[in-house]
């Protein structure tokens, strides 16, 4: 009797758990997106959802490196599409976490701008389509500091007014690349003296930084928790639009340019919907909605006409005439990359 009672209790508990959890399992017609934070307006997702009768879920990450780390930590096969930056597309392909498609799979493939069609990180666009491109440097609250900001000294050798009030992106690729630009050394250097100098620079600068925060890079500037901070150009434009006197810098030493791309992930549970979504994003109207939201620049034809006047003329998207050319983040070989990983670990510990 008591035995029956016990087993019954357990059985019903287990049964209840499974019945309830089965209800929440995804139905047919779903799409799982792994995306950067605050990078796509809800309306665009809703529109896709409605047009194709697909249930959309989205998770967010805050750096290219954590995207890869998560996928390799067993999340591959959970997501359909992700949006890595240029160098990460190449790394991810080499790591074998991307799936490829044919141009004929996407009827809007022809909408991709010519200069973004045959890119070095994805020749012929076999794995990715352009999402947005922009730059990364830093911004300063002009109410608090009115000196010259067009130098990377602001971040790595800050004036007294800014020391201790600087937020850094929590992103290995971007921090190390900007530091290399500051020192004038090549990326992926394996020269011992150069790497030691890079390590020393970061160690010396660290006490002058207040925090590492990518998701909050805009908010710390808006709320006043930080006076200067590394940031993406469009994110800085959003901060300025929230009414704070923030200026984005195109430093004379150089800055980072990047292009984020929608990639098809390997073992995507909903491959067809992923392709539908990518095709949907190549519609000028949809990409324009994203561009107006994110405040960067699209790589799709026919978007420019649909942008707001404010964005077309924004100082963040229009570098001054004397600004140097930006540099893309380079992909290093394994031995070199390990040294850079070590420098980052040293910085963060």
């Amino acid at each position, binding site marked *: *009797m008591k035995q029956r*009672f*016990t087993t019954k209790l357990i059985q019903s508990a287990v049964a209840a758990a499974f019945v*309830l959890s089965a209800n929440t399992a995804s139905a047919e017609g779903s799409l799982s997106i792994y995306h950067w934070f605050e990078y796509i307006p*809800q309306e665009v997702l809703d529109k896709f959802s409605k047009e194709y009768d697909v249930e959309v879920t989205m998770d967010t990450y805050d750096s290219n490196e954590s995207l890869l780390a998560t996928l390799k930590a067993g999340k591959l*096969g959970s997501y359909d599409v992700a949006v890595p930056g240029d160098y990460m597309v190449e790394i991810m392909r080499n790591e074998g976490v991307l799936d490829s498609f044919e141009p004929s799979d996407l009827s809007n493939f022809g909408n991709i701008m010519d200069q973004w069609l045959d890119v070095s990180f994805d020749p012929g666009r076999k794995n990715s389509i352009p999402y947005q491109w922009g730059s990364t440097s830093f911004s300063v609250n002009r109410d608090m500091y009115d000196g010259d900001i067009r130098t990377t000294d602001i971040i790595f050798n800050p004036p007294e007014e800014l020391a201790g009030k600087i937020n850094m992106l929590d992103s290995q690729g971007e921090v190390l690349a900007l530091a290399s630009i500051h020192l004038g050394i090549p990326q992926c250097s394996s020269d011992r003296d150069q790497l030691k100098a890079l390590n020393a620079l970061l160690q010396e600068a660290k006490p002058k930084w207040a925090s590492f925060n990518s*998701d*909050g890079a*805009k908010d710390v500037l*808006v709320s006043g928790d930080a006076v200067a901070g590394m940031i993406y150009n469009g994110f800085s434009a959003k901060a300025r639009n929230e009414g704070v006197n923030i200026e984005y810098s195109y430093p004379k030493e150089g800055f980072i340019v990047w292009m984020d791309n929608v990639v098809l992930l390997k073992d995507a549970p909903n491959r067809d919907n992923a392709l539908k979504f990518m095709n949907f994003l190549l519609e000028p109207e949809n990409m324009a909605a994203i561009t107006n939201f994110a405040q960067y620049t699209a790589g799709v034809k026919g978007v420019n006409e649909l942008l707001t006047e404010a964005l077309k003329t924004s100082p963040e998207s229009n570098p001054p005439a004397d600004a140097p050319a930006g540099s893309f983040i380079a992909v290093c070989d394994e031995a070199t990359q390990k040294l850079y990983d070590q420098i980052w670990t040293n910085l963060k510990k």
Partner: protein
Amino acid sequence: MASINTNIKHYPGFLAVTVFCLFLLYAPLLVVMVYSFNDSLSIVKWEGFSLRWYHDVFNGKETAKYKTAAWNSISIAVMAATAATIIATLAALGMNRSAQWRGKSASFALINLPLMVPEIVTAVATLIFFSAIGFKTGYTSILIAHIVFCIPFAYLPISARLQGIESSYEQAAMDLYATRTQAFTKVLMPLMMPGIISGYLLAFIISLDDFIITNFVKGAGIETLPTAIFGAVKQGIKPNIMAISTLMLLVSVLFVCISYMVGRSGSPTSQNSE
């Protein structure tokens, strides 16, 4: 008792410290509650009373996201608390209604192990476990992890209650030819109910609160309220977060009130004496 001079008990300044302690505990919560009614886009400036952020929570752009997260949180908490309470009730019977036996203290330690292991360690271990056995993280993985750490929280109040109930109750029932199961369901369980309810509520609230473990074991596209709030807060504290926080705060207060009422419904001995 009253003969003891209360003056001996009295220490000057302790009242002040108590008031200070309560002020510390409540000030930040009250500030968030007050600012959730702020009629302003900026969270810093006060621009008058308004319910706009509550309206935003239920009819805003992010309503769907938070609704799903709330549903996940609540359904997981209900199931985890139910499973943990059943397991804990049986365990409490086994521990408190048995004579001394070898391994009894080891068993006690095992049941309370989830309390002793730091949450971050449990989170890491569970993530590694799921990954090693190839279990796909998702809703079910959160549920499983929650059941485990809810067990001791359900066990402690149930066990405390059971300790206060003499075994003569169920023995009398069995003397009257009730089976052991009947003695449990008809006699002992009703007596234990306040403890079971307290344990259930505690497990429920602990599951609802959990962030660290959930953050590690949640699967693609699954958010609970704490992980959704954490994600939003990383991008900055918005007024709608304050409104959601206030609502969650009220739910917690409601639960602690229920638990308090149930706890006051008296132990069997005090019922006899009253």
